[in-house]
């Protein structure tokens, strides 16, 4: 098994997390600046316009589209119910009139004399936005939502499936390189955020879903297992809407890979704490990574915004992690930065660096294949 270490993602013991919580369209904000909120509190709500259903009356009544406006018994803006007669033909000499019974409930939005269609708008769809982070409302965005600020332990994963979930942190692995297997998942973990060490087995993920576990966080996962859980082969890394019942987050990558020591240590230190997670991942422009947010009791100590987050340039001595085979997952420090491009084993020419590995070995890898990591 390859040893894995902290990737170039944010892994922070204490940070100020700002959650921007907004509605998809304008609505009511239920909090005011300075309010203290819990993760599951509703902070804003609205009604999305209901679904629309076109009813083709001209076809159904076998009349010309232009006749429909005169045959309507209801007008635009009227509320109608399923089964209600909303139009009737003139019949022959006032007899044999054909009624049209609505197939939808809602409000008539338009009646078209060109197409003979009636558009019915269904009931509004209520949408609620939760606070997600337990903290203080630092800003209200009128009509849109709010920003919740919280001091929290914050861990970004590399990939996840499933959306926002809440629960207590339960670390069930004793070491970061211990694989997460099905027999470790029990019904007592229902509603919890379960933390494993290395690769989560497919059976373990399935059992977590069966037991109603809120989320599972582990070092890696096999692609084949992910495919079995999802029921399809994931094509592009845009996730978050899966309805698995359990959010799955991996912190390092695919395959046999242990959770970074630092991440494991941090999550272990917060055993039993209430947390919020989000598996949504988007690896496109505007990258979004999955995250684990564990609020701290407010006010104690100074928060620092980006501990563990790494940005900057490679320099000699900087700790790095190799993120591609044949040395995937290995940790080391930059030993040399040759300026001239070198020919790789693949035959390509690329700028490289030398990494002094933790094992004492020295390897040369392309600069594109390392991540800077936090010490």
């Amino acid at each position: 098994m390859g040893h894995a270490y902290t990737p170039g993602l944010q892994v922070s013991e204490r940070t100020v997390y700002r959650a921007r919580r907004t509605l998809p369209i304008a609505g009511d904000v239920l909090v005011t600046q300075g309010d203290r909120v819990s993760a599951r509190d509703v902070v804003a709500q609205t009604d999305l316009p209901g679904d629309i259903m076109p009813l083709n009356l001209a076809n159904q009544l076998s009349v010309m589209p232009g006749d429909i406006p005169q045959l309507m018994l209801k007008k635009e803006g009227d509320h109608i119910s399923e089964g209600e007669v909303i139009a009737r033909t003139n019949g022959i000499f006032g007899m044999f009139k054909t009624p049209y019974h609505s197939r939808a409930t809602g409000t008539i939005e338009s009646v078209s004399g060109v197409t003979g269609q009636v558009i019915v708008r269904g009931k509004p769809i209520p949408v609620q936005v939760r606070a997600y982070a337990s903290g203080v409302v630092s800003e209200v965005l009128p009509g849109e939502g709010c920003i919740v600020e919280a001091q929290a332990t914050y861990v970004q994963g590399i990939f996840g499936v499933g959306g926002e979930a809440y629960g207590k942190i339960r670390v069930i692995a004793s070491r970061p390189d211990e694989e997460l297997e099905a027999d470790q998942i029990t019904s007592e973990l229902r509603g919890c955020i379960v933390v494993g060490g290395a690769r989560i087995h497919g059976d373990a993920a399935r059992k977590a879903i069966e037991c109603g576990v809120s989320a599972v966080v582990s070092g890696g996962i096999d692609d084949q297992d992910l495919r079995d859980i999802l029921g399809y082969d994931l094509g592009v890394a845009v996730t978050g809407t899966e309805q698995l019942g359990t959010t799955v987050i991996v912190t390092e990558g695919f395959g046999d890979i242990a959770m970074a020591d630092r991440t494991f240590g941090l999550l272990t230190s917060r055993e039993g704490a209430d947390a919020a997670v989000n598996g949504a991942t988007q690896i496109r422009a505007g990258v979004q990574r999955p995250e684990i947010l564990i609020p701290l009791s407010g006010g104690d100590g100074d928060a620092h915004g980006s501990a563990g987050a790494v940005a900057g340039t490679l320099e000699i001595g900087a700790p790095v992690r190799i993120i591609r085979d044949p040395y995937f997952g290995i940790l080391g420090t930059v030993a040399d930065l040759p300026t001239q491009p070198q020919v790789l084993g693949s035959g390509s020419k690329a700028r490289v660096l030398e990494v002094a590995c933790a094992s004492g070995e020295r390897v040369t890898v392309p600069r594109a294949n390392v991540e800077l990591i936090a010490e």
Partner: protein
Amino acid sequence: MTQRQLDPDKIDVILATDCGSTTTKAILIQKVDGHYRQTHRGEAPTTVEEPVADVTVGVTNAATEVGELAGRKLVDENGEIIRPAQGNEGCDIYISTSSAGGGLQILVTGVVEEMSAASAKRAALGAGAIVLDVISSNDRRRPHEQIQRIRELRPDMVVMAGGTDGGTKKHVVKIAELVAPAKPRPRFGGKYRMPVIYAGNQEAAALVADTFDESVTLSVVENVRPTLERENLEPARDCIHDLFLEHVMAHAPGYNRLMDWTDAPIMPTPGAVGNILRQIAERNGINAVGVDIGGATTDVFSVFDGVFNRTVSANLGMSYSISNVCAEAGMPSVLRWVHLDMDERELRNRVKNKMIRPTTIPQTLEALVFEQAVSREALRLAYLQHKEFATTLKGVQQQRTVGDTFSQLSSGQSIVNNMTLNLLVASGGVLSHAPRMEQTAAMMVDAFEPEGFTELAKDSIFMMPHLGVLAQVHPTAALEVFERDCLIYLGTCVAAKGRGKAGKPCFRYEIEGPSLREQGEMAVGELKLFPLGPEDRARVKIEPRRGFDVGAGSGRPVEKEVRGGTVGLILDTRGRPLVLPEERTTCRQAVATWTQALGLYDD
């Protein structure tokens, strides 16, 4: 945009940028000994996202870099581009393309999917857009499902077509009645008024206009399909370009300033690539196919008999979409191109790791061989999609004569014909940066399966976008640079169409050139490479056996002059369509033989 009158004869220095999603690439074109040449290239990260959120910063950085390399000051103290050129300072014109922020995204609607909707889609793709979805009366979704889909999308604009002029109004308005209440939400927030282009039955235009409220900006242009027999895409394409500048660009950070800087309208990057390919095909009277394979998408452009088509395969790419290529093609299809022993489970994990860390590059030969195998499948699938889309107009009534009795061609046939293809141009990381040109040629031949005589080339540094927009203001300079600096000719591929039993004779060949004189016979299932340098030409005579065609029909000989290149002359008797042995060991042996014949990798 500066409306300066430009005298082409007085233009000596041209600066062009392409603002991509991640990198802004700048090239400098200068007049050297009376000819336009691309002289220097620079790049810098694109700056449309926070904290900079101003595209001109990336442009200035890229221009500064190219200026430093050229020993020419291109940017002044205020960070603006110096014009006109004087001595060692400035440039005469500055132009740009853009695909930053995900490019231009369009929702297309029409009445019949294969007719008006297909024409509207062609107009949108030709303008350089990504088509998010096509809504039509017969797309098999029920109306409420179509509405749901419209509500989910976040297009930059909507292009509506439907009905021939004087034809159906009802069906056109019916589609408008789905779009209007669904109120597609734009990417750029609530204050953005969604541009809707109506390019359908002109007699229905007023009725369509009545359907929409003030939340959209409606533009009515000429019908993309005025009659069943005719397509009229230019007015819709022009309108898309205008709205791209007025609405989409105006909302992108810093673009208002960039538009003031440029001497020609900013074009969407793929639109510019299509522009230059069309001009080249037109000028040389050839059929050409171009491909640009990126991390997320693959664009295919073709010009056959003067008809231009472009497709974007949205989820076929080499990094963000690599997993999707493997899912769509299936791992066995990818692995058939691999002559080495590889563990499938490990490969699957590697594919996903590349997807979540898209910027890594192959370090080992094994990783390179696998990525190039994936690229063959990505290109093959993208070309299949292109062939299915680039068809003659569907729905056209055919007049048949007695002579047509045995050629029952229906409307809607693909106009892409590999036998009449003259030039195949490759671009995009996996093709352009392959360590050996032979690998680029092999990927193209395996994926596109050219037939007969086909020249192979690659875009040296992906400057087709720059040249496409330059062609609008200075066609001579654009075409000159394209011929001299943009294309690197790899050589010519001669391939026989037909199938036969491996080992049986396929064709006899005679090659005569200043530095090459060869003759012989090739059996079915072979590949041969002959050295023929970039400056060389040779006469090649092929005498195929019955059942094989190299351009003149089954069993008929063809003699032609061929162009050399950095790879040379490839003779291919593997057959078309190209079918690899199903049994894994036999397949590996065959691929290993071809790999060796072309000298793709070190043993």
